[in-house]
Every structure is written in structure tokens, then in C-alpha cells.
């Protein structure tokens, strides 16, 4: 490597530059945080039901089979837009009903088909999950996914 780049210069560039990028990153994070709260997820209130649904989603670790906004496991369908796919995004009652019948019909037991486990959930839990998934679905995700297949 060239002579002008001594070890101590390389070190100083490393420290100085890293601080520079950290500062920019923190600034953009603050802005993004605000943007999420005020713009991209503001279309629907973050209600108790949504929060409960998020906890149900987490306690059952649905993420380790499904993806949500494209993140998670790739073993089962994307659910960030499942309410749109089922055509119930605009109707909380229909969303609850269809999700309830889905969950209660698992596992399918069909030979050669991936199985979703049976979860014993109260109606409140299922209603929360449905609201959580509707809430996720209404988030402005810059036009992703490309189509309803998810």
C-alpha cells in the first residue's frame, strides 16, 4: 500500500470516518422513527387489540415459519398482505371470522403438505391477531409486495 498511508493515518481515518457515519445514521434513524409513527403506519390506530395481536404473534413464534413484510422464515406464506389476499382488509369482523376458521382447521394433516400447528387461542387472541395483521397490511411499504401472492 502507498507510502502516504501510514498505519497511524489509517487508524485515524478509521476512527474519524466511523464517527462521521454513526452521526449521520443516528440522524436518519430519528427521522425514520418519526416518519413511521406519523406517516407510514398512521393509517390505523395502534389499538390494544393490535398490540395484543402482536404479542400473540410473538408468543407463538409465527415468524419462524412465515414471513412478515418479507422478513422471517421462508417456510410458509407471507402474511404482511394476507388480509388483502383474503379480501377482508376493510372489514374487522370478516377478518376475525376467516382467521378463526383458518386457525381452527389446522393442522390440515394432508400427506405431503407443510403443516401449520394447532394453536389453542381465545377469541380475543384471534381478534387481536386479525387486527395486528390488518394493521401491518395498511402500513405504507413502498409498494411491496409486487402482487397479492406476497
Amino acid at each position, binding site marked *: 500500500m502507498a507510502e502516504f498511508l501510514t498505519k497511524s493515518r489509517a*487508524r485515524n481515518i478509521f476512527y474519524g470516518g466511523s464517527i462521521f457515519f454513526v452521526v449521520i445514521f443516528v440522524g436518519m434513524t430519528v427521522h*425514520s422513527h418519526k416518519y413511521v409513527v406519523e406517516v407510514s*403506519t398512521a393509517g390505523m390506530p395502534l389499538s390494544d387489540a393490535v398490540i395484543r395481536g402482536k404479542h400473540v*404473534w410473538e408468543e407463538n413464534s409465527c415468524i419462524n415459519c412465515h414471513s412478515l413484510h*418479507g*422478513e422471517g422464515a421462508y*417456510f410458509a406464506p407471507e402474511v404482511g398482505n394476507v388480509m388483502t389476499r383474503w379480501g377482508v382488509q376493510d372489514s374487522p369482523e370478516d377478518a376475525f371470522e376467516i382467521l378463526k376458521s383458518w386457525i381452527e382447521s389446522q393442522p390440515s394433516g394432508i400427506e405431503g403438505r407443510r403443516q401449520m400447528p394447532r394453536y389453542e387461542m381465545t377469541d380475543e387472541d384471534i381478534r387481536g391477531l386479525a387486527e395486528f395483521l390488518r394493521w401491518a397490511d395498511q402500513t405504507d411499504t*413502498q409498494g411491496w409486495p409486487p402482487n397479492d401472492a406476497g
Partner: protein
Amino acid sequence: MKYQSQKVAYWYFLAAMALFGIQVLGGLLAGWVYVSPNFLAEVLPFNIIRMIHTNALIVWLLLGFFGAAYFLIPEESEREIWSPKLAYLQLIILVVGTLGAVGSYLVGIHGGREFLEQPLWVKFGILVAALIFLLNVSMTVLAGKKTAITNVLLMGMWLLSLLWIFAFINPDNLSLDKMYWWFVVHLWVEATWELVMASILAFLLLKLTGVDREVVEKWLYVIVATALFSGILGTGHHFYWIGLPGYWQWIGSIFSTFEVIPFFLMMSFAFVMVWKGRKNHPNKAALLWSLGSSTVAFFGAGVWGFLHTLHGVNYYSHGTQITAAHGHLAFYGAYVALNLAVFTYAMPMLRERAPYNQVLNMASFWLMTGGMAFMTFVLTFAGTIQTHMQRVVGDYYMDVQDSLSIFYLMRWGAGLAVVIGAILFIYSIMVVRKSEVITPGSANPVPGE
């Protein structure tokens, strides 16, 4: 082994290899569920298997890093570890936490953020263990000689521990949850862990090739500078579609493209050092793993990362088998192979013998690396077809998966090769059959300058 306290590394490496075994067996099982979906479906659902597979990986890599630090810091700072007792205490906390986590998962107790499923008490245990570690190694280094290698290693370890704070922050707002989640996940593997990797690699190359310390350390600073300059804002490549502002599409695409550079530099570094090296170290297997690690990291992280990092591509490939292909090869090359390089280098010394079982060890390198490469190829094919059918044509997810079964079968075969390689590796490290000092040829006759 120059310093008695380096011995603690031995126990870290043993624990790491045990978990490595669990990790790959978990992977093999998960891969089998893709082939035969009803297998164990009622007893051990896929999500639990996957959780064990990924968590075991992360914990054993960390155990390996801790062990590597305890091994190399005494040599670098030329003194014993500040408190070997604390180092053992730290290991006990980590092992108990790990067993606790695996036990919890098996009975269905876990969190729901990917990779961060550990029960709260285990998360605290990890935090405490990290603090003990930082105290211990910082005191050692402060009292001794300071080198660029320990500087960068400590900085990486401090920063990655600091980022662990975000494992405790889980906002109710899903988009915020996701944003802060990446502060652990991305800023670990594509920033702070790269510091750890580069410094350990520098140490290994210093020892194995005998190149001048000045040269090695200058490279080291350049590598880690490019890693952080690209990796910090490169986090934006995960912010495209989760509810964050649109400007991340440009910031993320541009900076994450630069993330290829540190991996390219690490690969070049390794080969240039071997080329320039005047020393012919008898542990050839350690050299193979070091070169292999930096090379496969360049392909897995650099090439396969770049493949889907531009937002125009990622729009279609996001969350498909393309991601799975990349994740596997990147982790294997950068962090698994590097750890195995350290074990291969350090274990004979920790057991106070000449290098042993070199041929067996090198065979395990080719078996594992070949297996991982094949797995990456078949998953990439599967992902390409999936992207087209599902994201372009719009076919339903489950139907698309049905048409990929041949790839999943081949992936399982590749995984089997990796598992056999892993077992071979562990055997070659643990069971000394024969000393195998491969007689070096004449040292590089015209040493480069």
C-alpha cells in the same frame, strides 16, 4: 501456549463445537421437513427446529469469538488474562443460558422476534456474560501491550455488546420493532462482527505467515474502515419495504454495494500475506481454513449479498430462497469457517502438541465447503424460480413451493455432506490419531517486499 491462562480458550472451543454439532443436526432436521413435510409436525414443529438451528449458530459463533479473544489477547498484550476465574464464570453463565433457552424452546416458551427468541432471563445472562468478558479483556489489554489487533478486536466486542441493548427494545409498532431489530442483526454481521473477523484473521495470518506486523496492522485498519463506512449506512438495504422512508432505497443500495469491499480486501489480504510470507508454518490446515474463510466470505457475503441488495432487485427477491442461499453461505464463510480456522490453529497448542490429523481436518474443509457451495447453488436456483413464479407471475406461494421440491431434496443432500464434514472436523480436533507435521518445502525463495 505461552501463557497459562490461554487455557480457558480450550473450554470455550469445546462448548462451541458441541453447539456446532447441535446446530448442524438441527439444520439437517429442518431441511428434512422441507422434503417430507409431515415429519415430526405434531411433536416438533418447524418453527421450533429453526429456532434451535439459528440460535445455536449464533451462540456458538460468539463462544468461539470469546475463546479466540482469550487465546490471542495474552499473546498480543504479553500477559496473563486479568481473571481466568471470571472467564470460567462467564462460560458457565453462557452454557446455562444456552441449555435454558433450548429447554424452553422445546416446551414452547420463546419470544417471537427472529433470532432473538431467548427468554428474558437468558438475554440478561448474555448481557452479564458480555460485561464480564469486556471487563476481563479490557483490564488485560490496559495493563499490557496495545496492538492494532487488540484495539480492533476490543472495539468490535464493545460495540457488538452495546448493540445487544436493542435485543431488549421491542416497540409495539411493528415497523419500529423491525427497524431496531436490524440494529442487532445487520450491525452485528455486517459491521461489528467484521471487526472481530478482521482482527482474528490478522492474528492468524501474522502467526501463520510471519509477515511484518506493521504491514498486517495497516491492512487491518483499512479493512475495518471500509467495513464501517459501508456497513453502517448499508443497514438501509433492510429498510426498503418495512414502512420506512423511501430515501433508504438509494442510501441502502449505494452503501451496501460498498460492503463488498471489506470482504474483497480480507480475501486479498489473506492471499497477499501468504504470498509475501517468509515463514512456513507446520499447521497447514489452519492456513487452509483461513484462506477458505476469507474466500467463501467474499462469495457468500460479497457476491451473494450484492446479488439482491439493489432495491430494484430486492423488490422481487425479498424474503425468498435467494435470501436463504445468501444467509447460509455468508455465515458459513465469514464466521463459521473463521472460527474453525481458530480452533484448528489453537487446539494443538492448547493441548501442547504438534499439529495433528491435518489431512482429516483438510478433508473436512472440502466436504463442508463443497456441501455449503452446493446448497447455495440449489437454493439460488430455487429462489430464482420462486421469484419469477410468485413475484412476477403472481402464482400462490404454496403452489410455487410444490414445484421446488427437487431443489429441496438436493439441498438436504448438501446438508448431509456438511454434517458429515462437521463430525469429521470435530473428530479430527478431539481425537489425536497421529501428529502430522507436513514437512514444509523451502520457504518462499524471493520474498516479496
